[in-house]
């Protein structure tokens, strides 16, 4: 057994990338959240946001989209779109990069966006090319959603450039503080370097995919990020709603539910205890499981930490949910992936094993990972 340290406030383990602990053992995510709750002048930020909105609003009496909102059909982006339309009086253009294998629920929620009274650009990609990247992403960096991360960041920016819509409104705040009053945001260009550092691309670059299984640059057109010149010409500016407004996912969920958003009625999503996240993608469980095998924590941990920080759960309750739901072998997603990729279960499991951290999970004397009757890995550390 190894000694894995956990945050004293939430349930993030020290194995999470980019996480630091202070002397009291409180993690940087909790510290950041406390700062958000305490030290931030939300009134000023709200004012800042509305001044930005005013600056970019197109003149009345003319057609036009005032801003662009990247959407997935999920609750967060649906909320963003609703907020810009209803609270800010803007006419947003919603842009969606089609996910790998959309669920019925996901499709319904996406269609709902246009029912909410907004234009939606739904980008349906070259499927064979995309599939090659899904399989290669899985084998090379242990993430079958790799091309999806690339697409969801690149296509909205590309559309913004081509359609001449300078203001892009993203959702929650990423690691890097990315916001400010109107004067400062002119420099907020979400450039390629940002994408590589924070987009979850795991070191693999789009140019690495040229030549894989015969893929050409042409087939990979949607994934090449616009150049600095193109971004400058349109004056593309990216802001995160989460910088200007306190992010409360559950509250936002209640709002969008009133506008046609549906959640999963028959139980939680694979890999966690919630029924309102990651509803759109059939194979999301595999992506989350890969995170679990690499770092020892999964989606249930993420959700529990958010609920703990928002005072909806105590740490004890959070721990219980993590032990119950975190890191279970995603049978449903794996079956979907077998169908989608054509790979055998044995090959898929072998690749998952190659990314599994041998310090975190128990192995037998031949080096094979131990699994319980349900196929779940056995932790080599205590969740506490």
């Amino acid at each position, binding site marked *: 057994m190894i000694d894995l340290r956990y945050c004293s406030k939430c349930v993030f383990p020290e194995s999470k990338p980019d996480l630091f602990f202070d002397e009291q053992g409180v993690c940087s995510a909790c510290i950041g959240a406390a700062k958000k709750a305490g030290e931030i002048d939300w009134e000023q930020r709200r004012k800042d946001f509305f001044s930005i909105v005013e600056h970019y609003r197109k003149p009345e009496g003319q057609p036009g989209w005032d801003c662009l909102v990247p959407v997935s059909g999920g609750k967060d982006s649906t909320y963003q779109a609703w907020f810009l339309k209803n609270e800010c009086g803007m006419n947003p253009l919603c842009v969606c990069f089609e996910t790998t294998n959309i669920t019925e629920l996901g499709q319904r929620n996406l269609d709902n966006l246009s029912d909410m009274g907004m234009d939606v650009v739904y980008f349906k990609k070259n499927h064979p090319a995309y599939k090659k990247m899904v399989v290669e992403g899985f084998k090379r960096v242990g993430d079958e959603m790799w091309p999806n991360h690339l697409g969801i960041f690149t296509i909205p920016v590309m559309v913004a450039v081509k359609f001449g819509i300078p203001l892009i409104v993203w959702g929650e705040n990423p690691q890097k503080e990315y916001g400010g009053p109107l004067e400062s945001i002119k420099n907020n260009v979400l450039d390629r370097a940002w994408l590589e550092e924070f987009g979850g691309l795991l070191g693999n670059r789009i140019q690495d995919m040229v030549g894989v299984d015969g893929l050409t640059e042409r087939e990979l057109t949607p994934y090449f990020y616009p150049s600095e010149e193109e971004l400058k010409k349109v004056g593309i500016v990216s802001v995160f709603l989460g910088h200007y407004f306190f992010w409360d996912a559950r509250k936002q969920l209640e709002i969008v539910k009133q506008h046609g958003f549906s959640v999963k009625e028959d139980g939680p999503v694979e890999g966690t205890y919630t029924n309102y996240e990651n509803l759109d993608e059939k194979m999301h469980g595999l992506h989350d499981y890969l995170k679990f095998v690499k770092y020892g924590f999964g989606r249930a941990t993420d959700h529990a930490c958010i609920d703990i920080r928002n005072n909806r759960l105590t740490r004890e309750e959070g721990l219980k949910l993590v032990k119950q739901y975190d890191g279970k072998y995603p049978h449903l997603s794996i079956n979907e992936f077998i169908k989608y990729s054509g790979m055998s279960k044995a090959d898929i499991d072998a690749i998952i094993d190659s*990314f599994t951290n041998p310090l975190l999970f128990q192995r037998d004397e031949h*080096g094979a990972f131990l699994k319980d009757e349900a196929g779940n890995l056995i932790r080599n550390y205590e969740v506490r």
Partner: protein
Amino acid sequence: MLKVRIIPVLTFNGFALVKTKQFGNPRMVGNPIQAARVFNSRNVDELVFTDITATYSGRKINLPFVKEVIDECFMPVTIGGGIRTPDDINDLLKIGADKVLIKNMAINNRSFIGEAARLFGAQCISVAVDARRTGDGRWELYSKTPTGLDALEFVKMVEQEGAGEIILTSVDRDGMMQGFDTELVQQVLQTVNTPVVAVGGGGSPEHFLELFQKTSIKAAGASAIFYFTQFTSYDIKKKLGDHGFPARFMAAGN
């Protein structure tokens, strides 16, 4: 003609890959297997993989784990971390390491370098020289416990002992992505005839071009650029190749 070498440097903390800034604030950046696969698919020239906490934690490098990383690679791999005895070196060579990287033993017991070179051949023995500016035009040899040694004097000794290669890292420039310490590099190149790999500060292809133009270096290593920017070793070599430096280009694909 001998090509320039661009070498990704992976620093490991026993658990995951980390990236430091000026040798502090390690930031976890991912899983070694995926990094090895990405770099192998790019046909990079070489790879350096070092466990930077092994010595301080009083443990040896995790051999089965390192073997898995080496197995992903069909280019030369240099492995470092916690090397204290000739058996440690032999263990690494047995699992497929081409070169080993020695740091603390070189500082504490210089004759170890010579012994290792005699036993295993100079071409297997690389020595890590971490240098930090002292503010008066010199560089000290940096380590967690102060060494009190001058970096240039130290490299002279390393050459005398017979090491095959020196991996020279600028502590000041490490992780800052603001360019290499070209003065340090040129001074070291003027001091020794052993092959040197310059590391620390390479954040864009322009930085590498500046390094190769201002010094007579033949090999450079980098880390942060491959985690945090869109540039790959291909972009760096293209830049160098366009300016007349002999670079090796391999078509992508497996």
